[in-house]
């Protein structure tokens, strides 16, 4: 059973500072007439690992997509690193370059090799010389443990490898915050572990992470806070221990019983 061996987690490495990196206040969003997010309030400190869970359609993906403005909110306030998100394109571009995002369907660029996928944004957004950007990309491909796949195209990689390239691509912009939108949901069971291990390494490095996921094992081990969402609202927030062992709201209890009892 060596494969299933739990990854050692050193909680002492994951320190949380006082600095607030994300502030969401009374945020509301509608898709047409449908009220997807209702009065969301959330403050994230530097170094926090937050897992967001909830039934499908509860607005959890929409929430983290609002944080880097892939979705527009209609009411309330979102501040990232002290910069308020509004229609200003320059601010949006600045925030996006500081917030990395990993998608469920990877969204790698299929016409570029793994290395080019990673070095593209440093070259064009950070205006880095190509040589330097390639070195940077190699460094992060080594961190996600696939330097040998650097010259392959996404279509030639397995799902788990693609997702790790996607993580490396986001890391190449040296973001202060990483958003994960169901990063393991499109993967075969055998590949979920390699992606989760990469994310654990990242957490140990002190990265601020917001993770939408159904991997409750990951939430227990890595998160310092679990958020449960339903029908566009934050229903319950707690530390993982209390969240899983002593849920307060009925909806949380029902959800946990459904995902844990099999």
């Amino acid at each position, binding site marked *: 059973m060596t494969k299933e061996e739990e990854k050692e987690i050193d909680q002492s490495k994951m320190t949380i500072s006082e600095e607030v990196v994300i502030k969401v206040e009374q945020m509301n969003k509608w898709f047409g007439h449908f009220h997807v997010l209702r009065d969301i309030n959330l403050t994230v400190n530097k170094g926090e690992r937050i897992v967001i869970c909830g039934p499908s359609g509860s607005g959890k993906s929409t929430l983290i997509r609002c944080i*880097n403005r*892939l979705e527009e909110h209609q009411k309330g306030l979102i501040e990232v690193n002290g910069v308020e998100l509004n*229609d*200003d*394109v*320059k601010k949006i*571009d600045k925030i*996006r*370059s500081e917030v*990395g*995002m990993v*998608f469920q*369907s*990877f*969204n*790698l*660029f*299929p*016409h570029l*090799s793994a290395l080019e996928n990673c070095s*593209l*944004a440093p070259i*064009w*957004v950070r205006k880095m010389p190509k040589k330097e950007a390639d070195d940077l990309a190699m460094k992060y491909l080594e961190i996600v443990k696939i330097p040998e796949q650097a010259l*392959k*195209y*996404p*279509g*030639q990689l397995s799902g788990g490898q693609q997702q790790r390239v996607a993580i490396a*691509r*986001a890391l190449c*912009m040296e973001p202060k915050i990483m958003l994960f939108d169901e990063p393991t949901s499109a993967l075969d069971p055998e590949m979920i572990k390699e992606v989760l291990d990469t994310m654990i390494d990242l957490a140990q490095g002190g990265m601020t992470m917001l993770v939408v996921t159904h991997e409750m094992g990951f939430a227990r081990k890595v998160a310092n806070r679990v958020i449960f969402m339903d029908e566009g609202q934050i229903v319950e927030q707690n530390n993982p221990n209390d969240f899983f062992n002593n849920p307060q709201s009925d909806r949380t209890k029902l959800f946990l019983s459904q995902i844990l009892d099999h």
Partner: protein
Amino acid sequence: MRNNNYKFVQKEVIAQQPPPLSQAGVTGWLWKNLFSSMSNFSSISAALQSIIMIILTFVLLYFCGGQLYSLIDFALISAVWSDPEVLKRGSCTTVDQGGSLPSGWSGACWPFIFAKKKLLIYGRYPAEELWRVNLVYLTLFLGIGYTLFEGAKGRQWTGLAMLTIFPLFALILLTGANFNISWSTNLLLLGLSILFIFFGELTRRNFLGNIISELTSLFYICGVTLFLIFIAALLLSIDYGLSYVETSDWGGLLVTLVVAITGIVASLPLGIILALGRRSNMPIARTISTIFIEFWRGIPLITVLFASSVLLPLFLPDGVDFNKLLRALIGVMLFSAAYMAEVVRGGLQAMPRGQFEGASAVGLSYFQSMRLIILPQALTHVIPGIVNTFIGLFKDTTLVLIIGLFDLLGQAQSTIADAYWSSPAQAPTAYLTVGIMFFVFCFGMSRYSMFMERKLSRGHK
């Protein structure tokens, strides 16, 4: 009784074995592609079907073979190749028609084409100035060949030069330049370009507010384009000592290539801009692009050409006269841009939303994500459509005949009227020649596009 003996463990790996003969090699290919439909005699109906297939195969072979043979016979075997005694029509007519060939003869009359080759390739371009056209042809074919050649050093720079310097070079050589461009026009161009660049600089530093700052690149592009036009205008007004050749003296392949290449080169960038405009979130850009595309797609090219040569002069003030070729060029350019825009839009729409999101999420701006992520993929997907439009455009250039420009086909038709060569073989030979020339160009484009498709699809799923 139920069989419970399903326990099974595979102990050894079965080695790979070669496929059966009917699947591989020459036999396999012949079998799959030729004989599999006509070899099944297992039942009466299958046998009947096989027999019908055999009969059909032979009937088709007979017809195709017969047609092919007649064409080869006409063009090569029975054809007249030389006219040593300068008999002109006499060399290509039978005894009954007043010539020297046996009665009942039919074949191509190549001496007629050889005699008219200058007309077909250059039109009525003055004979002593032909070196200018030849130089343009030579630069064109060398430049394109080098740019398209895989692995040639600096091919992207050659390509860029072919797109920017070559058109100017060709224009100067072909017309003789020395245009009378007034100083006020030059100053206006220079002033406008400086103004645009100045605005670009202002918006880049965010002096004009946030909304306008999105237009920074647009201002720069306009400014630089106007500046390049200004330089082109300066170069065109210089006297190089070349005699002036009217565009009405151009003809044949020269006109075909000028119209087709201008249309092809201009239609792709214009089409991309229009397609992006039509897909944009900005209502004004979207409306203008949509109206433009629907307008040009809604009228036939012949109407565009007629309007440019008959209608347009009515609206222009007296004394202002646009060159007929230039008017046709602009018409063809805008017309093909509208078609190209729809092809490109098809490619853009086929792009998954995740690609746009992935590009935005790493911080690329709209123009960067379009240029680096979306367009390379979208254009690769629609290469067949793009080349289809190019080939269609190349062949549509023959329509300029109706406004009195003599392209390859028009020139060939005019040579048929030559009474010295009048013979029954005259028209078929001329049309065959034109057909072959068009085929060479169009087939070349088609093959190169297939090569590009194979090359660019590497690494894709």
